[in-house]
């Protein structure tokens, strides 16, 4: 029998080699995991895992929340809910200095409440907020940076695909994870708003105020808000009270978004078809990653490597917070080059047992890891939100956007630090659940 630690290293080596050769991450994990299982316990068991595990993942009831929440985001996008949110943000905050930036952050936060994906959030806001800011004379870097940073709220404020994936990989309660993301999400909005205000104060020419909105206009804009607010409260409230399972919350959310689209007269057959096709494809690509991650996880469990690593770390005598700081720094650096979901599935099987063994709360760890990997969406060279924005606003250079986003990265780091300092920011709300 091969030594577990060496087998695990070999498995990771094979996995990263395949992934670097542009093999899709899910398939790289599937192939490396099966190879490892074959080496450890034989070809027949590996062949059996290859039959059982993918189908169980594809037909698992718990896994359904992935397509459900993606369908909800896609429907929200295709029925123009993002524009309504922006209009409301504009009417209420637009007049202040840097007001359009504030409006963008607030609208992004609202959209995040019904959308689990950062790219979808970014794309939605880029189409509505960016043209307005540019027309008002905002500095292109600042405008784009605000949209890209606001987009990261998509996976921070629940519902969140990344938190869901973490829950599926670690068998933690996803409803509880979503509830735990709420207060840190509000903190993120506050820190981003503060960042916008500080920049606007220092460089007024980069962020002028918008046109004043009348009382009537303000209250009219609220009519657009109630629907999104109701859906968000319905989902999070239902999960908080334990009334429904996360997948059901996603399904009902998607139906509710569709119903709002119908009332607003924007739910065309083309919109539904487009949203569902897009959602099915992107949910499928997440499912492929999940299939691979679970099989690779079975391989890692067989090696007993996580236990060996925990033991080794305990013997080095490093303090738990020292290990945690090293892990979070690692996530921040990996985030510069890796995809967010890929990073979660590749690393959580190793970091999660370590964190739990060192006495960190699994829910807290899920939220802090989500926050740290989320920063990777806006850090160079591979910042997915920035890249998406760049395809929408072709005339703003990548370097300009990355410069514009830098202050928000600083705000993110402050937030991670605060949450390490006061874990109660994450844990208080779920602790009041039944």
């Amino acid at each position, binding site marked *: 029998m091969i030594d577990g630690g060496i087998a695990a290293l070999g498995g990771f080596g094979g996995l990263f080699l395949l992934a670097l050769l*542009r093999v*899709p991450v899910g398939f790289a994990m599937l192939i490396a995991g099966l190879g490892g299982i074959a080496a450890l316990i034989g070809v027949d068991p590996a062949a059996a895992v290859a039959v059982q595990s993918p189908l169980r993942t594809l037909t698992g009831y718990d896994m359904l929340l992935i397509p459900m929440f993606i369908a909800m985001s896609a429907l929200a996008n295709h029925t123009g809910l993002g524009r309504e949110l922006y209009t409301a943000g504009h009417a209420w905050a637009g007049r202040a200095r840097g007001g359009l930036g504030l409006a963008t952050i607030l609208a992004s936060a609202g959209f995040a409440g019904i959308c689990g994906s950062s790219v979808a959030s970014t794309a939605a806001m880029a189409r509505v907020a960016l043209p307005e800011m540019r027309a008002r004379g905002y500095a292109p870097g600042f405008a784009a940076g605000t949209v890209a940073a606001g987009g990261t709220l998509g996976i921070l404020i629940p519902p969140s695909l990344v938190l869901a994936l973490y829950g599926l990989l670690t068998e933690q309660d996803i409803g509880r994870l979503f509830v735990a993301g709420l207060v840190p999400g509000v903190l993120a909005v506050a820190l981003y708003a503060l960042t916008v205000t500080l920049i606007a104060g220092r460089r007024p020419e980069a962020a002028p105020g918008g046109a004043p909105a009348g009382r009537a206009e303000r209250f009219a804009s609220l009519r657009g808000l109630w629907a999104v607010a109701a859906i968000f409260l319905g989902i999070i409230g239902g999960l908080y009270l334990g009334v429904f399972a996360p997948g059901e919350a996603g399904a009902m959310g998607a139906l509710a978004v569709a119903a709002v689209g119908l009332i607003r007269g924007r739910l065309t057959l083309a919109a539904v078809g487009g949203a569902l096709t897009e959602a099915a494809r992107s949910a499928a690509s997440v499912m492929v990653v999940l299939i691979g991650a679970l099989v690779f996880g079975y391989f890692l469990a067989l090696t007993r490597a996580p236990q060996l690593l925990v033991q080794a770390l305990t013997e080095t005598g490093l303090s738990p917070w020292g290990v945690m700081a090293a892990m979070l720094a690692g996530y921040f650096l990996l985030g510069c080059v890796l995809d967010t979901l890929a990073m979660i599935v590749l690393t959580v099987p190793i970091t999660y047992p370590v964190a739990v063994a060192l006495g960190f709360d699994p829910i807290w760890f899920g939220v802090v890891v989500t926050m740290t990997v989320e920063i990777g969406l806006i850090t160079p060279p591979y910042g997915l939100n920035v890249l998406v924005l760049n395809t929408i606003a072709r005339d703003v250079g990548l370097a300009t956007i990355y410069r514009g986003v830098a202050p928000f990265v600083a705000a993110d780091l402050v937030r991670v630090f605060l949450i390490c300092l006061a874990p109660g920011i994450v844990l208080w709300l779920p602790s009041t659940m039944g």
Partner: protein
Amino acid sequence: MQAALMQVVTVTGRLAGAAAAAALGLAVVAGGVTALARYLFGYAVPDGFDLVRLTGGIAACWGIAAAIAADELIRIDVARALPRPLAAVVAVLGGAGALAGAVLLARSGVLGTDLLLRSGETTADLQLPLWPAHLVMAAGLVVAALLALLRLLAPVEGEGDKTT
């Protein structure tokens, strides 16, 4: 020749996407309705659990076919920075890995259906056989493997993922 192959990939991918979208729509409606019926009326839709689970599975299998056709699977794309000839080699290797993965999934679909056919496993409430739904899933995964093969024969730069 390559253009014709890509045409086949595009059209098949679109059909697979439509099938996946239909199944996903059904899963969303079934999931929402069973939850509402249970919460509002205390009524459990018979086999609601299995219905949602299986339509979701069908959506995922045909969605994988559509995602492979559109080259949307999540990748780590550091090979973008490579010089051209090397990047071409990496693209072929990546395509071969995608094919291998898709073949594994298709095998899982086909053998899994066969296993259910022999074991006689049923849904919980109505005791309906499970294998027909799995046959539809297996078909989607076989199509996915064929699409991965065609993509390997006619390599074209894809757009990469847009999921996070």
